[in-house]
């Protein structure tokens, strides 16, 4: 979209912050990537500070947060959303890395918000038949923070995490604080009073292509970093086999295009929230 006026409906998402790389992997040569159709380079200067350069050599806004470098092709007016748990002592922070997916960045987030697929896509790990029922839960757009929240989500999981030794009913809370980012709060087996935090930060490369950067803040002193990363990479690769075969590739916001049920309340709230804010980069507005 360099050099041309973007369609007005896209403006809303242009001014958001997006993950564009890992702080731990910054180097002088830089990562050649893209952000919403514009080629960008994410490099570190001599002092290791990130520099993000846009297609015509312009310097883009940059921030460092949650292990990642964040940037924008527009002019962000807000800060990056807060994750208070990122400052909590005792947590381990896991840079999972990147998974390239040929799908809309919005489809990637919606899949992250979905639990009903666990028995079929993450079989014997995050779900297993016959435990397929999605019990009633609450999903809402919270007006005070203007975020999508789903709470009281419960699901039986054979192996909820790398540290889980057997099947448990896991409780989840989901948050969507930005159009391509979601934060999941999940039962923490070693510390029942706390929540493990697993995030999905999605870099929109184009409307139908994205880089997914999962990140975690866990209470787990035992599992090796390699095992933690492998576990999440396995989960997201299973998701990719779905995301690259959904039709259409863009997220349909036309209500006639797909059929939700009560289990999809979070997805319904997410789509409504996207529409309300004109967050439609990666969305299909009218059935084709």
């Amino acid at each position, binding site marked *: 979209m360099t050099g041309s006026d973007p369609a007005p409906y896209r403006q809303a998402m242009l001014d958001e912050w997006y993950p564009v790389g890992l702080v731990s992997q910054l180097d002088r040569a830089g990562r050649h990537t893209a952000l919403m159709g514009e080629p960008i380079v994410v490099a570190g200067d001599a002092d290791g500070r990130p520099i993000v350069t846009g297609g015509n050599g312009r310097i883009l806004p940059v921030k460092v947060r949650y292990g990642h470098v964040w940037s924008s092709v527009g002019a962000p007016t807000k800060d990056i959303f807060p994750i208070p748990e990122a400052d909590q002592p005792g947590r381990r922070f896991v840079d999972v890395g990147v998974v390239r997916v040929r799908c809309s960045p919005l489809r990637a987030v919606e899949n992250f918000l979905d639990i009903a697929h666990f028995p*079929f896509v993450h079989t014997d790990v995050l779900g297993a038949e016959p435990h397929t*029922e999605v019990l009633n839960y609450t999903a809402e757009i919270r007006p005070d923070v203007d975020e999508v929240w789903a709470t009281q989500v419960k699901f039986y999981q054979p192996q909820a995490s790398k540290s889980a030794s057997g099947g448990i009913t896991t409780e989840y809370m989901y948050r969507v604080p930005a159009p391509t980012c979601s934060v999941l709060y999940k039962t923490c087996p070693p510390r029942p009073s706390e929540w493990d935090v697993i995030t999905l930060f999605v870099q929109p490369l184009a409307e139908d292509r994205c880089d997914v950067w999962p990140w975690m803040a866990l209470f787990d002193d035992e599992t090796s970093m390699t095992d933690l990363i492998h576990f999440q990479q396995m989960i997201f690769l299973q998701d990719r086999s779905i995301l690259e075969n*959904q*039709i259409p590739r863009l997220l*349909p916001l036309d209500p006639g*295009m*797909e*059929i939700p*049920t009560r*289990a999809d309340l979070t997805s319904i709230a997410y789509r409504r929230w996207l529409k309300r804010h004109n967050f439609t980069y990666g969305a299909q507005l009218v059935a084709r």
Partner: protein
Amino acid sequence: MRSDTTGFWTPVALSADIPSRTVIPAHVSAGTIALWRSQAGQIAASADRCPHRGMSLSHGFVRGEALSCIYHGWSYGMSGHCVRIPAHPGLTPPETIRVATHAVRDAGGVVWVAEGTPASDPPSLDGLTPLRSLTIEADRAAIEAAAGVPANADGLIEITRDGEDLCLLLSGSQQSQTGVRTVVHVLVATGSHAPQRIAASRNVERLRRMAETASANGNVQ
């Protein structure tokens, strides 16, 4: 591919290539469909898209007499009606949740899918036995040019020349990401022995290369 005013049958696959409890993608002029065979052996064809979240149904699985979506396990019967939504085990899915289906016949070792409403049965393949299918990256005209004879009204090409006996059943051509492609089924005389079957397989391979080379060089309109 017999063409009349009401419709025709497209030979999309060989019966032997879809055992019970499997689903595969198949191609008709309207696009990709999900072709599946139930546990009891019944063949069925539906739209290749689950209406819930758009997942391709040809990536799904078959259990009993239903095709299930791999994403959330929504299951569809032969008639296309949704029979099960695993997230809501107690719910009888409303009649309105369904996938479009296509009439399909399993005849002569070939699976035929109706395009439109064919007035007659699929063509008879008496005396012929299907050997294998292959996809040729070329259109029908290029394949006919390589064969040296046009297909008849049923889509059959019969080649008999020195050392080359070949019978091909052509499906419709489809646009793919890499160009045009055509699914071709190789048939041999019923009762053929291994040497004839091997020869047919080699001959069709030669024909495929000729058609694809001509097509890539733009020698065929």
